[in-house]
């Protein structure tokens, strides 16, 4: 049975797929989004896992959502409402803490308490990172030019990029080179002395990668996360009211307002082709839907080896996809709590509970957490980024009760002996046990515990090996190399078949840039 024909079908209703669909529909293309799960959002979903308690099940904060997408799609009108997440507190093993507050003076004084030298250095470091982020930011909005290509468009792109980097000046250019090559620990060692500060800052360099803070290349990821800061003016950083699912809903709302159709519970098993051209999709159950274009929002492995027969693709592409690194390294524990946790370093309620709590007391702590993972175990004492969404949006839990979102690293996809129910619970136990060292009343408050391993992430969302970025943000698979050389411009060897997920440039985080750039490229190529 076949249905009416669409201009474009987007496979996967993750946030990038929705963004791509919205831009295509905005340009007048008859667009259909097909999502396997009963709700859109992919890894940006809010679900009431326990009655009355709403969890941002996977992705839990917004930092990099592109301002141009917010504007072009008028997301505020469709429910985007980003609330301030103002502080980061790192409990220390000696009972003290390190805090970064919303106010720069308060933050500087807090840091001075631990290291007067670092307090000064942080200001200069902040300026440098500002320049670095400004330098890299245009790349986020750019279709990556291929330096190995001689096409006029690639050369123009490279020229633009070259003159952009020349404008940096040597000091900044050198710093950028260091960021691209060093480990986050080494990079931060050049600036700071206070261990907990370095640990907490380096944590953003390891999120979602199978790297430790001392692994070369981790410094770049630090920058990737810092880029959220230059949009500081636009204030796109924080906590979405209603959880990250509400961001997906807002993008879906915009897409529908532009005329896109969204179907959930629609499991695409294959892209149909004829004479090397995409003709539509086949759904589980036998239904086929025709379209001029098919755009995959799934990750590169699924895009190139599941939805289409890899035998029909060039060998080097398939080989590249096979080598492309996913290596999911993080898990998530979501708790429904009967009351507020009390941290020994800052007992009772307070502003710290409205921000992030970072379990990163020292670089050695993080590196040891990585050591466990390197040898195939989850960290006994993991790095954790903890948020209490109900403290920011009271609607996330019944009055007086709370939800706690715990991002946990490391939990390797390839666990010794494989993941099973017992291992999952043991992982959950390690998380709660470690956190209870800093908040002793936590275990007594737990009404419900949801433990999500990389294996679960893959099983639920489809993300290969549970990698939250659709593939590691490692230098060898970024920019014109993402996902693989020669196929970094959202195209595939199959005419009419495109890619738009985070496995394409620039990827990672609830950024939406991949979806937007893919849609713009498609619209430019298929006028």
């Amino acid at each position, binding site marked *: 049975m076949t249905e009416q024909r669409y201009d474009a079908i987007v496979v996967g209703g993750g946030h990038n797929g929705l963004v791509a669909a919205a831009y295509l529909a905005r340009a007048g293309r008859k667009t259909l989004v097909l999502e396997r799960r009963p709700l859109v959002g992919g890894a940006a979903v809010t679900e009431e896992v326990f009655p009355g308690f709403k969890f941002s099940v996977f992705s839990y904060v917004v930092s990099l959502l592109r*301002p141009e997408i*917010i*504007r072009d799609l008028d*997301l*505020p009108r469709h429910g*985007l*409402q*980003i*609330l*301030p997440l*103002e502080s980061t507190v790192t409990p220390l093993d000696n009972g003290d803490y390190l805090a970064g507050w*919303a*106010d720069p*003076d*308060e933050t500087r004084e807090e840091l001075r308490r631990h290291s007067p030298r670092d307090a000064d250095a942080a200001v200069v470091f902040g300026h440098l990172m500002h320049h670095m982020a*400004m330098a890299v930011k245009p790349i986020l909005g750019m279709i990556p030019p291929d330096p190995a290509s001689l096409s006029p468009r690639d050369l123009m792109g490279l020229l633009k990029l070259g003159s952009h980097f020349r404008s940096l000046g040597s000091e900044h250019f050198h710093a950028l080179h260091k960021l691209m090559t060093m480990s986050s620990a080494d990079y931060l060692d050049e600036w700071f002395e206070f261990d907990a500060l370095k640990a907490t800052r380096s944590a953003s360099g390891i999120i979602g990668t199978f790297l430790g803070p001392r692994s070369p290349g981790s410094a770049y990821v630090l920058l990737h996360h810092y880029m959220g800061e*230059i*949009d*500081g*003016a*636009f*204030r*796109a950083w924080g906590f979405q*009211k209603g959880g990250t699912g509400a961001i997906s809903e807002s993008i879906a709302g915009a897409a529908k307002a532009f005329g896109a159709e969204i179907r959930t519970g629609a499991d695409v098993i294959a892209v149909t082709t004829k004479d090397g051209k995409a003709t539509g999709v086949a759904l589980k159950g036998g239904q086929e839907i025709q379209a001029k274009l098919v755009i995959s929002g799934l990750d590169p492995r699924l895009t190139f080896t599941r939805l289409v027969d890899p035998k029909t693709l060039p060998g080097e592409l398939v080989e590249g996809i096979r080598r492309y690194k996913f290596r999911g390294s993080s898990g998530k524990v979501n708790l429904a709590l009967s009351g507020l946790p009390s941290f020994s370093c800052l007992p009772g309620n307070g502003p710290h509970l*409205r921000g992030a709590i970072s379990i990163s007391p020292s670089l050695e702590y993080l590196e040891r957490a990585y050591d466990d993972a390197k040898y195939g175990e989850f960290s006994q004492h993991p790095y954790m980024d903890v948020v209490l969404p109900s*403290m*920011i*949006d*009271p609607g996330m839990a019944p*009055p*007086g009760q709370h939800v706690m979102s715990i991002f946990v690293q490391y939990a390797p996809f390839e666990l010794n002996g494989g993941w099973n129910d017992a291992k999952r619970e043991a992982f959950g136990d390690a998380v709660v046990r470690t956190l209870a060292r800093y908040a002793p009343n936590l275990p007594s408050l737990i009404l419900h515990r949801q433990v999500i391993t990389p294996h679960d992430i893959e099983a639920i969302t489809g993300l290969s090996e549970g990698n939250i970025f659709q593939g590691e943000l490692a230098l060898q698979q970024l920019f014109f190399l993402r996902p693989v050389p020669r196929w970094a411009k959202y195209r595939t060897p199959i005419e009419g078949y495109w890619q738009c997920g985070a496995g394409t440039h620039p990827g990672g985080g609830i950024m939406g840039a991949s979806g937007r750039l893919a849609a713009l490229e498609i619209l430019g190529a298929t006028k």
Partner: protein
Amino acid sequence: MLKTTPFHPRTAPLVRAQTWRRWSGYQMASAYDPHPDREYAAVRNSAALFDVSPLHKYLITGRDAQRLLDRLITRDVTKLKIGQVYYTPWCDARGKVVDDGTLSRLDEGTYRLTSADSSLRWLHMNAVGMDVEIQDVTEKVATLALQGPLSRAILDQVSPLDYGKLKYFRVAPTTVRGFPVTVSRTGYTGDLGYEIWVDNHYALKLWDSLVEAGADYGLTPAGVWALDIARIEAGLIMLDVDYHSAHHALIESRKSSPYEINLGWAVSATKGPFNGRRALIAERERGAAWGFVGLEIEWTSFERQFARHHLPPQISNVAWRTSVPVYRRGSQIGYATSGCWSPILKKPLALAHLEKPHFAPGTKVEIEITVEHRRVRANAVVRALPFYDPERKKA
């Protein structure tokens, strides 16, 4: 010494960075935190608690109370029902706005008027020969504004009134934890919200009751900085910022008619004699010379002015209140009087006075901005007010 409100013993310890300001001779918190982000967010996300006690408040009773007020304001007081509230301007004899505020009919013959400026002299001048009692209760009645999507849920915890039935711009007597208050479904934020009017004697009890009941609902004490952003988003004007009182303007051109400050809707076309009637009828016929509208500043053009200096756009988390020229096709056609970055709409906004015929919604204009010490212009589009108007405000 500036005066302090009855809530001062509670609010003062919360002001962390000594960010105080003046409001009608009172000392008032600009913000409790060093910056207003969280306080503003509470208005649109949970509930914010504002001390608005410096509002001037007059209790007007007596046989001629309705007659006096009907002469005073531009709306038809004979149609004001018991338990209803008007928002209204009032004018001088030439139809120029003196002040704006709310008029509540508390019972058959009792009215409460609020104003930004002290209005006692003007009330008495209009009451000559009438059988009315005008009581200035500014210092006797303390007022809290509880504003935000969860404001109703909080009031439900402490007050027996059926808040689902208290409609927009209605007022009712009730109690909070047993002591008497009146609650109006009004506010200065453009959101779901209430103002709670209480005898000074119970002021601290009221504060404590709301703070306690609101703890699980994200209740956040908030200052004037947060209020200012919310009221700009809601397109609500402010005396001495967006317009000048006809009684204070040094020159004629500083005065405005209701039509010129977007309050034409509040001028009754049918009622009998009232201050400024003749001038207002004439103005309605010939059309106002000025319009008061919203300006949405285009981000890309705003950003471009900063990018020239290799800067990301600089925006403040506090609203501005200065007069800024507005141009169209190279000529100045008006001026903006206040503006802010709207965190919820993610747009820079301004409120502006524009000359006829440039104030139609959709008109493209330019607004002056200062970037790196230089005055440049950013593109802006005229918008009808309010900028932000959630359904829950009236639902």
